[in-house]
């Protein structure tokens, strides 16, 4: 058999995690470099996947399949379609930046015993998350996916709860309590979703007798596997609930602002740019493929919820006082767009949604990381504590501006392409929804520009007067992201070509065709 590329791509960071964790307490810096090395190695493998993957070819490629738990009908089955490749690429790409950005976030204040090695733990956990996320993008076995979907919560949980944002308004005690509250909320919320999904997973097994996505999908398509309407709907809801919590979709979103607010900026990026993508990805791959009828049945409700997320998230972002919470609510709004695009069930919508996952990942990373650098300088997350930064740290302000512009999806930057695709894709089938969603772009402009104005412009505040501009390490983190934003905004073709066939498959799963233009329809 050929070289198990997919397994390797997930194994490298996993091994990296173990190695990093094993580094003795004193050799903190070594651990950092090791982590960076392994993340880069993963990136290389991800690129190899991208090269080896033939967009036009089989739906699932580079597949691997090994017996695992026969009693549960579970196999270790991997395979990637275009969407998977794209998201693996995103993950592998972002992690090195996350690691670089978090370089000093886990340096221990000189308390704690010799055996207490937070730095090692921090980077090991990040790599562990990467491994699980990548594998979950590759899994074509529902059970395997579920296991990762749940397991990745644990390292995330420790990352959020263990390494909080040091720039905290309240006392250390208060900070600790709020942090663990956020972490517990994150874990329980997602665990609850996951357990509901577990019931559905078991139900699926009872109905289908195995967990292989391809087999089940094939059986569904060929009609061998009949599902009673209600069964299908219940199972769909079980799955969708978990994904909607993870995504997150209104009204299941409240864990995100806490988590992103309390976590360090890099971890916040990890949450919203990487881990949450698993939720939207799973909607595309599992909900639509396994339960096409139910998906169509649920579409109206989901679209409404997505709309609410878009507008509601944006409005709340306007109302935030805390930079990171603002970004969090902005993300909720963006996830609304993604979910809307998925369930519009048009090629533009779903290609747009997939593209949106990528672009949102990059743009949020850019904005959030710069915000993190800003916060680390001033030691406060409150917007009101800043002002006139532009004058003292022009580069920082500039990058921050680009990040903001990407967030309001300015044409020429990557997010515009995806957002417009989603809007068009939705509009062609649900014009009203599309129009309402368009208000989102105005609100986006509002909250990003208000944020920029309050923090960067105006007279220079004394506290920021001595603020240093971006350091080299920080520039190394931000510059490539911005370059990527511009490149994908001008030339998204590589990604769209990767994604289009996969989207085509998904649409044929749900037996939906794009609505014809009026003019052609008339002919």
């Amino acid at each position, binding site marked *: 058999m050929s070289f198990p590329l997919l397994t390797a791509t997930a194994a490298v960071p996993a091994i990296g995690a173990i190695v990093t964790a094993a580094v003795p307490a004193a050799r903190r810096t070594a651990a950092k470099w090791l982590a960076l090395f392994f993340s880069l190695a993963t990136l290389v493998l991800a690129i190899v996947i991208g090269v080896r993957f033939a967009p036009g070819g089989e739906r699932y490629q580079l597949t691997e399949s090994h017996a695992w738990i*026969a009693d*549960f009908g579970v196999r270790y089955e991997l395979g990637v379609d275009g969407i998977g490749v794209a998201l693996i690429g995103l993950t592998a790409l972002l992690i090195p930046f996350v690691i670089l950005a978090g370089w000093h976030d886990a340096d221990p204040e000189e308390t704690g015993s010799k055996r*207490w090695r937070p730095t090692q733990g921090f980077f090991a956990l990040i790599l562990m998350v990467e491994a699980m996320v990548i594998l979950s993008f590759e899994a074509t076995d529902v059970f395997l996916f579920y296991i990762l979907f749940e*397991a990745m919560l644990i390292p995330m949980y420790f990352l959020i709860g263990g390494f909080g944002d040091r720039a905290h308004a309240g006392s250390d005690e208060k900070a600790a309590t709020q942090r663990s509250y956020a*972490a517990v909320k994150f874990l329980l919320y997602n665990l609850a979703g996951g357990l509901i999904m*577990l019931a559905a997973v078991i139900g699926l097994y009872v109905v289908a007798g195995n967990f292989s996505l391809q087999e089940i999908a094939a059986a569904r398509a060929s009609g061998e596997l009949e599902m009673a309407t209600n069964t299908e709907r219940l199972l769909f809801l079980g799955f969708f609930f978990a994904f909607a919590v993870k995504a997150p979709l209104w009204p299941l979103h409240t864990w995100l602002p806490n988590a992103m607010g309390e976590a360090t900026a890099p971890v916040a990026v990890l949450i919203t740019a990487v881990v949450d993508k698993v939720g939207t990805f799973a909607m595309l791959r599992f909900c639509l493929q396994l339960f096409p009828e139910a998906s169509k049945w649920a579409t109206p409700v989901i679209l409404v919820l997505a709309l609410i997320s878009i507008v509601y998230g944006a409005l709340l972002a306007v109302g935030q006082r805390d930079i990171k919470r603002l970004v969090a609510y902005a993300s909720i709004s963006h996830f609304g767009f993604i979910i809307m695009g998925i369930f519009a069930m048009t090629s533009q919508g779903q290609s747009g949604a997939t593209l949106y996952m990528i672009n949102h990942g990059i743009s949020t990373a850019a904005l959030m990381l710069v915000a993190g650098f800003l916060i680390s300088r001033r030691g406060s997350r409150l917007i009101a504590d800043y002002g006139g930064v532009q004058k003292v740290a022009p580069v920082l302000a500039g990058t921050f501006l680009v990040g903001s512009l990407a967030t309001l999806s300015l044409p020429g930057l990557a997010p515009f392409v995806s957002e417009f695709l989603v809007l068009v894709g939705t509009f062609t089938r649900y014009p009203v929804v599309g129009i309402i969603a368009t208000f989102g772009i105005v609100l986006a402009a509002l909250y990003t520009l208000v944020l920029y104005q309050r923090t960067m412009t105006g007279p220079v505040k004394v506290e920021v007067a001595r603020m240093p501009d971006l350091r080299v390490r920080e520039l190394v983190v931000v510059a490539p992201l911005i370059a990527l934003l511009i490149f994908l905004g001008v030339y998204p073709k590589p990604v769209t070509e990767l994604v289009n066939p996969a989207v085509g498959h998904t649409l044929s799963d749900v037996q939906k065709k794009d609505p014809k233009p009026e003019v052609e329809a008339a002919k």
Partner: protein
Amino acid sequence: MSASAVHSLWTTAAPIEKIDAPTIEYAQLLPTLIVIGAAVVGIGVEAFVGRKARYYVQMFVTVVALVAAFAAVIGLAAGGHASTEAQIVAMGAIAVDGPALFLQGTILLTGLVAVFTFAERRLDPQAHGNQVDSFTAQAASVPGSDGEKAAIKAGFTTTEVFPLALFAIGGMLVFPAANDLLTLFIALEVFSLPLYLLCALARRKRLMSQESAVKYFLLGAFSSAFLLFGIALVYGYAGTVSYAGIADVVDGTVQNIDPALADTMGNDALLLVGGAMLLMGLLFKVGAVPFHMWTPDVYQGAPTPVTGFMAAATKVAAFGALLRLLYVVLPGLRWDWRPVMWGVAIVTMLLGAIVAITQTDIKRLLAYSSIAHAGFILAGVIAATPDGISSVLFYLGAYSFVTVGAFAVVTLVRDAGGEATHLSKWAGLGRRSPLVAAVFAVFLLAFAGIPLTSGFSGKFAVFKAAAEGGAGALVVIGVISSAIAAFFYIRVIVLMFFSEPKPEGPTVAVPSPLTMTAIGVGVAVTLVLGVAPQYFLDLAGQAGVFVR
């Protein structure tokens, strides 16, 4: 009553010419015999070996016995007694079949690991230059009295715990294999009585220890009285106490029906009431709601090694017996007991999970968690399918090791007053000793049923079986209550890792290889069964058939 009546009373039983000696298949009974024998030897040791040497001799005897017994079990299983050769031995008193051997193996291993924690002597500071374990120097002496001090000074140790444990294990080995009600009852008592005593033998907090023993004893005896009455009624219904016989009568497939039998057979109330009382007796042992109330108090008061041993082994044995009773004796009554068990399972899962949320003592917390788990296992029992049996067997195997391991960790966290079991003392443990905290976190995650731990595999197995057995609603309630349960496991993790250590916090004692083995085995099993459970699932699957 009239003389004639009296006369008839002792003549009805037909005069007996000669009694032929019973046939005993010693080979098949080897595991039990070894353990019981070793226990008797242990008594001898207590009587004849000098104080200093006793501890070592006892430990040696116990460990050897358990290992040998386990080897015997493996031998029997290898000899096909688990599947093809499964048979009923000792004049129908004991069944040697898949479930029996699987559970006996589990009990023996857990027992072995538990005995290691019994023998741990490095945790408590030395008293007058003598290493001490977690058992009282002299059970007879009044707590805090001069007698006790003298005993400690003299370096007495309660080495009786080893034979006691052996007796208990012996009883537990028979319990799930018992093939008639009498054996069931005797086995129950044989493993209960030593446990009552073990509970009373804590070195620290002796008042609580004694209290727990009293509660356990009185309630245990109370429940066994019910069990016995149930036995009486069922016997009255079926005219026999052998499982197969009863099953035949229940199914109505019995050959020669004499008038008396025909008379009682007509009266289902006997059977139903008796059956219910039998169930009650067993549900008490597994700690199912509403027969659970002894669990928290006893778990908290008993010496922690004993708690671990009880929590793990008793559950295994009791569920084994419960399975056999429901699957061999009362399958004919399935439509009567299933709904009832549904109710019991639901309340057990929910109450265990909910009440645990507000617990402040780690041992009580684990007690309630064990109640919740009993509920999960019951869900598998209810499935009433071969899958159900094997899933329960697997769950028991997975669960028992996690439990022993977890309680072993509890013994390590100590302050001046012995073990620091109050949760507030565990704050910031992750900072002081990351390793211990991490290990405990692994156990907690396994309890919570997080994927890649044995807890998840087990939970998935039973829920799957239940769903296939048509108990979908039960599964939903199951996942909900495990969501609730997750909360307090997480709480402990938060406490250990995310809160600042208290200055006067407890220290983590460095244990001897004994406890380390116990914990190590626990972790290993937890992870192996979590990542690659297939082999053990097969084992359980093959062992999933009862002999009649």
